[in-house]
């Protein structure tokens, strides 16, 4: 069973190659159905492998099994979290392909297969990164994931915004990838190994009696800078709202649903295997670094999410806020927090993809994603209104949803003060989404006047389909419905949470089995509280827009300038801050 792991990467690649080779000979329908079939096959394989990953699977590519503990080959690790992320990536790619069924205006002349091929390459990159047990191999799949994401984000080249957003996304992520590679070079110089667990052992052996030295700290800063750029932590997050505001909707679903989360998974994986030993970064430093960055990210994401009127940018900032919450959960370094974050991440992926799908429907039906321009125009889309509101409530953490279960378990693990931040961040983001739902679908409240000029309005966008959709094809409505049903299943599925917790603990803390995770009264109460707060915020915002729009957040909004130079400067500042946060442990020892 182990040697099927590389197939998770090889199958989508083969599908993409076949699509590009035969793309021009077959009609568009055949190309898209082949893509869906290959994506579904990979998802099925991922789920089958996930079902029997209780002893984590280890596969040496090329058959280079270790000889007395040493090997020259590349190791792929098929444990719970890895295969879980690969399965999630495959399922979301399948959902995106189903959503974009005969969706785009005509593809480039004679290249019917190019968009599905790029989406399959995207799936291959994500699966490869999720399974990588070798640090340089993770960098290669990280690079593939990024290159395909740049091309997909800039897919609508006739839109001025799309190409600018894709360019800033490409420059910032490439610089992050080069930082990651510099970190790998330093670790290779010190340990002479590339497999993550081997590097960890090498660091422990090489570390003197007084623990890590500056080289380990520099490698930690460089590797984590690359991963945190992908995970959109403050101050590396600037590329995400620009990229999500312009990417085609199916791409947004996959970008926000799983690619950004892979950054947080990468942070968890790299720290657990490489930097967790005595020779690595002391736990207190890692905890301080991630707690500070996570809290900042959650706060900035939530505040800026509240101010947006462009629907996709609003959802993008909500993703930034949730990434902050995930990093906080990972930073606490407790097995219960890891289980909670795994469930929360699964739930959030489904909810966020469903919300982006509904935003895409609005864009294609009315040619705009601007909250003010759409006020009251979407009354006849009953089904979409229900899906959108359910998604917003899921985002807020309403109990039956998987997000609420994950949030409650994590809140229990992170303790008091951080729980307040969890409740506030989810309430503000969900409140913004509920405000949009109330205005767009119900047309409530007075017409809001335009804010100052320093904002990106959602109007003036062209629908992604050739012409405005008279009738919404049911494939575009079925996908969000199925995703929300999945999130409900995560929440109420019997024993599902225990399976996830068992898999995560077995991989993370070496099988320290934790008490079964389940709904707790306190968790349910916190979930209801955050939902009530969200509904309240939305109600106040709709009825008296002046009240909840203070101007003190304006300087924060000016930082999101869309200027490549600014984002690169902030990346350097972020790396320096990360170094400063993790410095005490290295100096102290």
């Amino acid at each position, binding site marked *: 069973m182990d040697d099927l792991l590389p197939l998770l990467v090889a199958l989508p690649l083969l599908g993409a190659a076949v699509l590009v080779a035969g793309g021009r000979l077959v009609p568009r329908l055949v190309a898209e159905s082949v893509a869906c079939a290959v994506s579904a096959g990979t998802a099925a394989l991922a789920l089958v492998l996930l079902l029997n990953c209780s002893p984590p699977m280890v596969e040496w590519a090329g058959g280079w099994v270790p000889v007395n503990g040493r090997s020259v080959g590349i190791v792929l690790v098929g444990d719970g979290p890895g295969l879980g992320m690969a399965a999630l990536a495959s399922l979301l790619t399948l959902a995106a392909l189903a959503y974009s069924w005969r969706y785009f205006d005509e593809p480039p002349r004679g290249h019917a297969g190019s968009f599905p091929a790029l989406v399959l390459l995207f799936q291959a990159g994500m699966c490869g990164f999720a399974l990588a047990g070798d640090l*340089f191999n993770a960098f*290669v799949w990280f*690079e593939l994931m990024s*290159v395909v994401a*740049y*091309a997909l984000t*800039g897919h609508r*080249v*006739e*839109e*001025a*915004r799309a*190409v*600018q*957003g*894709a*360019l*800033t996304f*490409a*420059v910032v992520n*490439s*610089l992050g990838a*080069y930082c990651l*590679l*510099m970190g*790998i*070079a*330093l670790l*290779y*110089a010190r340990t002479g190994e*590339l497999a993550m667990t081997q590097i960890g052992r090498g660091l422990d052996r090489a570390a003197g009696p007084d623990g890590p030295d500056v080289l380990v700290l520099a490698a930690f800063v460089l590797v984590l800078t690359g991963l945190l750029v992908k995970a959109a932590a403050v101050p590396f997050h600037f590329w995400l*709202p*620009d990229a999500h*505001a*312009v990417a085609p909707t199916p791409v947004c679903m996959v970008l926000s649903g799983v690619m950004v989360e892979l950054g947080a998974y990468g942070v968890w994986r790299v720290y657990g295997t490489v930097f967790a030993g005595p020779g690595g970064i002391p736990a207190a430093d890692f905890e301080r670094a991630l707690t500070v960055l996570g809290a900042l990210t959650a706060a900035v994401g939530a505040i800026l999410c509240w*101010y947006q009127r462009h629907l996709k940018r609003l959802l993008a900032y909500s993703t930034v806020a949730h990434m902050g919450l995930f990093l906080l959960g990972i930073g606490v370094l407790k097995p219960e927090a890891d289980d909670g974050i795994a469930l929360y991440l699964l739930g959030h992926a489904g909810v966020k993809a469903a919300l982006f799908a509904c935003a895409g429907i609005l864009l294609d039906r009315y040619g705009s994603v601007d909250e003010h321009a759409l006020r009251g125009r979407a009354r006849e889309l009953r089904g979409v209104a229900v899906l959108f509101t359910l998604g917003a409530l899921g985002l807020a953490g309403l109990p039956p949803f998987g997000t609420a279960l994950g949030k409650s378990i994590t809140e229990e693990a992170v303790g008091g003060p951080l729980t307040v931040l969890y409740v506030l961040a989810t309430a503000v983001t969900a409140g913004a989404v509920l405000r949009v739902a109330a205005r767009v679908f119900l047309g409530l409240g007075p017409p809001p006047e335009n804010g100052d000029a*320093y*904002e*990106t309005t959602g109007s003036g966008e062209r629908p992604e389909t050739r012409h405005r959709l008279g009738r919404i094809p049911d494939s575009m409505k079925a996908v969000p419905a199925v995703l929300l049903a999945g999130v409900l299943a995560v929440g109420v599925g019997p024993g599902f949470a225990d399976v996830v917790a068992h898999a995560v603990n077995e991989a993370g803390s070496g099988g320290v089995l934790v008490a079964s995770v389940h709904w707790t009264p306190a968790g349910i109460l916190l979930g209801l509280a955050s939902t009530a707060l969200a509904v309240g915020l939305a109600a106040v915002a709709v009825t008296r827009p002046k009240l909840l729009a203070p101007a003190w957040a304006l300087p924060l*909004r*000016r930082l*999101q*300038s*869309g*200027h*490549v*130079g600014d984002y*690169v*400067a902030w990346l*350097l500042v972020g790396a320096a801050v990360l170094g400063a946060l993790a410095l005490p442990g290295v100096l102290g020892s």
Partner: protein
Amino acid sequence: MTAVTHVLPYLVAVWIFLIGCYGLATSRNLIHAVGCLSVCQAATYVLLLAVGYRDGATAPVFSDVEPGSRPVVDPVVQALALTDVVVGATVTALLLALVVQVAKRHGTVDPDELSELRG
């Protein structure tokens, strides 16, 4: 003098990386910025190959050298650097494709004049 040469290649790599980042952050022309990004990437080649060097060693190619007769340099970093060179070329090609489209749609390649995505 010998103390400096033990660490000179690493310092050169760090210098190239930081000067590339400086150029990228302060560039007034997107094509120039893409050039600076490829300079940043050149730093990773220099660091990788400097890590793999061995004094008095030859290239790890045994078509004309008797295996085992002479010490050889580390071939693994060369494979990593090769992969990195090709990845760099592809990222540069994609970025330049996007710059062409930015110039076409915005009429300018000066990042200060791009004003579409704000706030």
